[in-house]
């Protein structure tokens, strides 16, 4: 990522500090609406599963199932008593807990107290654990009846091979059923620790109160150790085409290959390049041709997905079985031509203009700010990422886009997963 510095006042005033015991804190004060959001991201995603597939996910799903003083019903009731939303979420890279709460003290204090209790004394009761196993089993069955999940799981597997990003974060049915509550408790003790945490607070709360709350988190929470760094992904396979027969009206197609890292110097150039190809949806080349001119799909887009250790480039769509070949060939020819010739001068200028004009839309709400803080905090983007974004886009030349496209998109090295009624 390039870096431009600017001097005008920040778009979002981010307060960032390292707490006494070393936790990174990112805070944005937003007094306009009486809400506080607190999110903690742990470096504890499915890439830490090692041999126990699905462990990160079930550990995260167990957090609200019992603490030292409360069972799952108590926890649900207590958050509901104050209208708070408590959620757990996990990805390939991280596991997070989030609390959305009314900022009025009588609500906030109760919700925050329970939030703390969950963080430091999750208990992993046996009966709750077996219930979660069954629920995840159902989730996996749901995925088996849904073509887009079938394609996604096969794509990930073909893309990453033996890398820790390869497996479904829910695990497999066999793997999930063989996990134990002790596995989850051990995972929790190892990774849900201060050294491995990024704290994000946005909303109607003062810096003083945030500091008090940070101190409370630190008092009750072990320091622990940082999680090991996920090894960088290397190409496992390319040019693979897998057909998975499925009794659906449509054929679902996922095609792509390994992508880039956040910190790649081509980050901004590829954003512009991909926007024209299929990132901007409605006005992109893929959308206009395959949906607009040919009416073959409801949606089609292309995207670079970013992870800690190399994400991927992906184009995906679904079309009636009888038009799958046509749509696939059209996509390939649009892609070939675009990577070969690059965007036109006009497309390039319009895309830059569009990206810069639409940037304020992406940062209008508290929810948006949390999303940016997660990227800045967890993925270590520069603290002035938001303020320099438009200048960085403006600085890119057409040639840089053309070069970046050639370097990062390889139409002939794609993995293609085809799920449906036509090979």
């Amino acid at each position: 990522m390039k870096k431009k510095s600017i001097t005008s006042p920040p778009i979002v005033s981010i307060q960032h500090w390292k707490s006494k015991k070393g936790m990174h804190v990112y805070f944005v004060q937003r007094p306009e609406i009486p809400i506080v959001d607190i999110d903690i991201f742990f470096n504890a995603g499915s890439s830490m599963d090692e041999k126990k597939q699905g462990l990160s996910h079930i550990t995260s799903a167990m957090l609200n199932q019992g603490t030292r003083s409360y069972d799952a019903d108590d926890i649900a009731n207590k958050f509901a008593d104050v209208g708070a939303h408590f959620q757990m979420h996990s990805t390939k890279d991280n596991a997070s807990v989030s609390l959305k709460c009314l900022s009025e003290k009588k609500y906030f204090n109760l919700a925050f107290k329970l939030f703390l209790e969950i963080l430091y004394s999750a208990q992993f009761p046996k009966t709750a654990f077996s219930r979660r196993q069954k629920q995840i089993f159902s989730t996996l069955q749901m995925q088996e009846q849904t073509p887009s999940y079938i394609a996604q799981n096969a794509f990930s597997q073909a893309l990453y091979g033996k890398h820790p990003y390869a497996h479904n974060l829910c695990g497999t049915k066999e793997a999930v059923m063989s996990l134990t509550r002790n596995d989850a408790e051990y995972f929790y003790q190892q990774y849900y620790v201060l050294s491995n945490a990024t704290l994000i607070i946005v909303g109607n709360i003062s810096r003083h109160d945030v500091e008090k709350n940070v101190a409370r988190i630190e008092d009750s929470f072990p320091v622990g150790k940082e999680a090991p760094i996920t090894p960088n992904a290397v190409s496992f396979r390319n040019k693979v085409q897998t057909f998975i027969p499925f009794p659906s009206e449509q054929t679902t197609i996922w095609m792509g290959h390994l992508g880039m890292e956040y910190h790649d110097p081509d980050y901004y150039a590829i954003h512009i390049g991909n926007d024209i190809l299929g990132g901007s949806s409605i006005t992109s080349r893929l959308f206009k041709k395959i949906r607009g001119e040919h009416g073959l799909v409801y949606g089609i887009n292309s995207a670079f997905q970013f992870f800690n250790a190399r994400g991927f480039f992906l184009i995906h769509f679904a079309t009636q079985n009888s038009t799958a070949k046509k749509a696939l060939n059209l996509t390939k020819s649009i892609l070939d031509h675009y990577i070969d010739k690059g965007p036109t001068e006009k497309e390039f200028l319009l895309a830059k203009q569009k990206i810069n004009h639409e940037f304020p839309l992406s940062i209008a709400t508290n929810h948006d700010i949390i999303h940016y803080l997660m990227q800045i905090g967890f993925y270590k983007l520069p603290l002035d990422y938001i303020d320099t974004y438009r200048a960085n886009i403006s600085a890119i030349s057409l040639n840089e886009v053309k070069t970046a496209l050639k370097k990062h998109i390889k139409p002939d090295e794609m993995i293609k997963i085809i799920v449906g009624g036509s090979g």
Partner: protein
Amino acid sequence: MSAKKTIHEHFFTNGLKLIIKEDHRAPVAIMQVWYKVGSSYEHNGITGISHALEHMMFRGSKNYRNTQYDEIISENGGQNNAFTGQDYTVYHQFIANDKLEICFKLEADRMHQLLLNEQDFKKEISVVMEERYMSIDDSPEHRAYERFAAIAHTSSPYRHSIIGWMDDLKQMTVADLKQWYHTWYAPNNAIVIVVGDVQPKQIQQWTKKYFGSISARSVPIVKPQNEVQALGTRCVTIKVPAKLPWLALGYNTPVLKTAATNKQWEPYALWAASSILGLNSSSRLQKNILRKKQIASSAYAHYSPFDRMNNILMLGLTPNSMQDVEKCKKALLEEIDNLQNQLIRDKELERVKIAWIASKIFSTDSLFHQAYEIGMLECVGFSWAKIDRETIKKIRGITPKQIQDVALNYLTPERLTIGILEPLEIKANNA
């Protein structure tokens, strides 16, 4: 809470209504144009026409041909899209506040001079069919829900899905769309809503400038089409390739719009009953069926007081397996029984009340949602401002006795429809 925000309402001589809600947190604005037409306005044979027309609204109008509409919004850094509901069709733009004027020009043009070209229609109806395959036909649960709704409603047009039956889509012509467009798209059948960092005077001027010259048109009087009285439990089994069963219970229920003056409390009590059953993880279905009995992996309850016509209060479950379906059905009926026979405790009622209040406040973070709430109510004939003031009071006033009363009156076997998705083996060639 949101009442502190400044709201402005204006009527124009051609019948167009404008509502502005200021939110100055960021230099952006959302504009939505709502038309009072949706799938519940359609009769058999033309189902899905409101939604198909929504697609054609992006295929050019007199002064903005082909895909110019999307291109202009995009060049200006805006995001635009549309959605069709049972009771409305909505077009929306999200854009930096200094670029907002162009949205008025574009929306006004397509309000009264849409092209509706034959060639474009052929492509677009094919896109709509792809959308139907993706969202309904290839999704076991959505396919089951579509069939369930067609049984739960007997005479009400809520019985068909928004996207319409495939056969109706295949038979649809551009002439049908032209007629539908000329029937319903008129300033006197539309509401413009703007939420964001805007100057109300300026918005009013732009609305007048661009929409003011569009003539009012006579729009059909919408018949009530009240659902016939339910006469007994209906059951439907849906057999499709799947791994998981699905179970739904739906009760024909009144809504605020149809409730008598002295029974305006009923829809709120029904909302509370539905929330006590399945709003969040503290609700009874989650507690008793997911956690205690462990016979299903997910559960929800849904009821909205604000639909245009009588609708259903619905409970949905994903049983763990076909063996658990009967147990799940029994468990759901027991929950209904409990609501009818035991007054709920105040503490439990307080939880759903605070949930309503909190969710109202949480939703003020989103400009889209703020505009949506206004449009959704205005489109079925409520004054948003009035409802917004009254609802909190109505919600706070719900009593345990009222919940018991609506459970006894409306959650009855006569009003019940049961839908069961029975999975067939997934074999590659039984599409």
